[in-house]
């Protein structure tokens, strides 16, 4: 009987959440739900604003999310995200499974549009331009915001073609220079020596790590300004992981990097900023150091110390 009542309470709370507008950090309803495992954690308004301010102060904002809500059909996944991704920095999106990290990431390059029922509200701005409203050619958005996936996904073409395809599609270099550019891109990710004699062969003969580097080279070849990474090293061995991480750090000088990772150590190793998501909301966003040394929210701390997630 007790159990039933509890469930009913939970249900009614959920019902309330659905009805509520986007909860502001100082929204009282958020506090009221504290304590229940299923409800979003409290967000202390002052801390939240401070962290946003901290991120604002330290660099140029490349991508800015305002009140971003995403739903698939009737199910809302992201309940109003406000976040900024700074240029020439690595921002890690962390949070427990199902918190909406990947959905958020795939909303940034409009990849979720391929999923039936996808609906987005709010603003996603790239250099102040709303990529959902102000854009005529979505392909150019996707060129400017590149993506590296969870597992390597080379095209079923030769190794050279994998890179040349993007170069030609976006007219990055004149046709005659495509081959040289392929060499340059492969050299940049440190793959040239390994593949220079088998450029016309299938990429599926390469190791997983090499394939992922090829995909990175393919993404970089079209001169992106932002790179989205969806757990880019989750299928790689430690050595390949190390290589990809080194590359990402080196890439900071010219792109803004947004990375979803389940690996808190990885976030600590290479990210400058951390955005902690929980149940479709930003709980805490700050510099990596600040988050790891001085998490201001209990949920963040629980997650980072492995008590959750």
């Amino acid at each position: 009987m007790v159990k039933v009542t509890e469930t009913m309470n939970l249900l009614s709370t959920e019902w309330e959440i659905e009805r509520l507008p986007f909860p502001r950090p100082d929204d009282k309803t958020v506090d009221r739900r504290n304590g229940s495992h299923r409800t979003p954690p409290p967000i202390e308004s002052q801390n939240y604003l401070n962290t946003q301010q901290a991120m604002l102060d330290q660099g140029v904002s490349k991508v800015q999310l305002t009140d971003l809500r995403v739903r698939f059909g009737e199910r809302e996944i992201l309940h109003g995200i406000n976040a900024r991704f700074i240029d020439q920095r690595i921002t890690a999106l962390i949070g427990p499974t199902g918190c909406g990290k990947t959905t958020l990431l795939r909303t940034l390059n409009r990849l979720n549009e391929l999923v039936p029922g996808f609906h987005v509200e709010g603003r996603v701005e790239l250099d102040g331009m709303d990529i959902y409203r102000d854009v005529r050619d979505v392909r150019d958005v996707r060129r400017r915001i590149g993506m590296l996936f969870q597992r390597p996904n080379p095209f079923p073409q030769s190794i050279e073609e994998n890179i040349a395809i993007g170069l030609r599609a976006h007219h990055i270099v004149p046709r005659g220079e495509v081959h040289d550019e392929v060499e340059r891109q492969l050299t940049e990710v440190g793959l040239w020596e390994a593949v220079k004699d088998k450029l016309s062969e299938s990429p599926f003969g390469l190791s997983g790590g090499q394939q992922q580097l090829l995909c990175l080279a393919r993404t970089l070849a079209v001169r992106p300004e932002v790179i989205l990474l969806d757990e880019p090293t989750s299928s790689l061995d430690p050595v390949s992981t190390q290589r990809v991480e080194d590359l990402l750090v080196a890439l900071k000088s010219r792109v803004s990097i947004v990375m979803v990772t389940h690996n808190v150590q990885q976030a600590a190793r290479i990210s400058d900023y951390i955005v902690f998501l929980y149940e479709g909301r930003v709980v805490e966003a700050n510099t990596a150091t600040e988050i790891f040394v001085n998490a201001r929210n209990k949920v963040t701390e629980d997650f980072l110390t492995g008590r959750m997630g």
Partner: protein
Amino acid sequence: MATHLEKLSTPGRKDIPVEAGEEFGILDRVLRFLGLAGAIIPTAAVLFIAAVLLVSALPSILFNGLGFLYHQSWNFGNFYSSATVTHNGIQAPTGASYGALPIIIGTLLTSIIAFVIGVPIAVGSALILVEKVPPPLRRTLSFFLELLAGIPSVVYGLWGLIVLGPFLAGHIYPILARLGAIIPWLGPPVGSGLGLLTAGLILAVMIIPIVASTTRDLLSQVPVLPREGAVALGLTSWESVRLVSLPWVFSGIVGASILGWGRALGETMAVLIVSGNGANFLPQNIYSPVSTIAATIVALLDSAESDPTGLAVSALAEAGLILMLITLATNILARLMVRRVSSTSLPIGRGV
């Protein structure tokens, strides 16, 4: 049985009881036997058919020699005369001469037309079904596509004879014939509408559902990750289909096309009805009456059986053997093609 079970258990761990071991052993044997039989039967059937054809065709091969492949007239000779001729030790009715060139050419040309017209349409419709059509409509359209495969070939033939042939001869071919000034074999006369092009078109309609439904199934199984990779790179949906999906299923499409090609080669009734039955001359233009090996075998088998020397049936068997060889040759060709392409682009070998 006991020794069989002992082999399965690890030495030193014989204390583990194997329950119901008896049933396991028998079932295992039965399954293995069924598997073996299943593996052998198709191969054995092909070899058996080939052997029987070869034996039946032997008298004709000896009598006609290589001339069978390049002579243009097919003549059973006089069945009712008691006089016979003998060549290479084979008896034949007076005046018998067999040349299969027109029907070999007819078979190849009708199938090539069917292939060239049918496969692009089939692949195109599969692409549209998978990529552009919303799911509810896709199911309806797929249903009709598969219905197309279920229409008996004799119905196709009748429709070709009554509707398509006269329509083409009356309205389409005269227009096409004007191109004859540029492309010689498109020129007039257009004839009755029963001939090479009509047969090819009917065959194209017949192979479309086979190729399209197979291609559609293949395309819908292309993994999502590489396709998303293409979209995320800013490629258009057409580019992503052309550069990712199609190469991914290329060998499957070749396989499906070969199925269609095989059907076109061997199709009998529909072709017999709409081809105009021109077994004794080579086609003059694309509208000429033609005949194919399969159609000729059906058309002539009845009268061939009244040949007292048996050579007429043997000649038809030789024609059947040639049809089989053509099919075999195209299959091998397709396999070589697939192997060459797969080695450079398809995910074979190490994955992730």
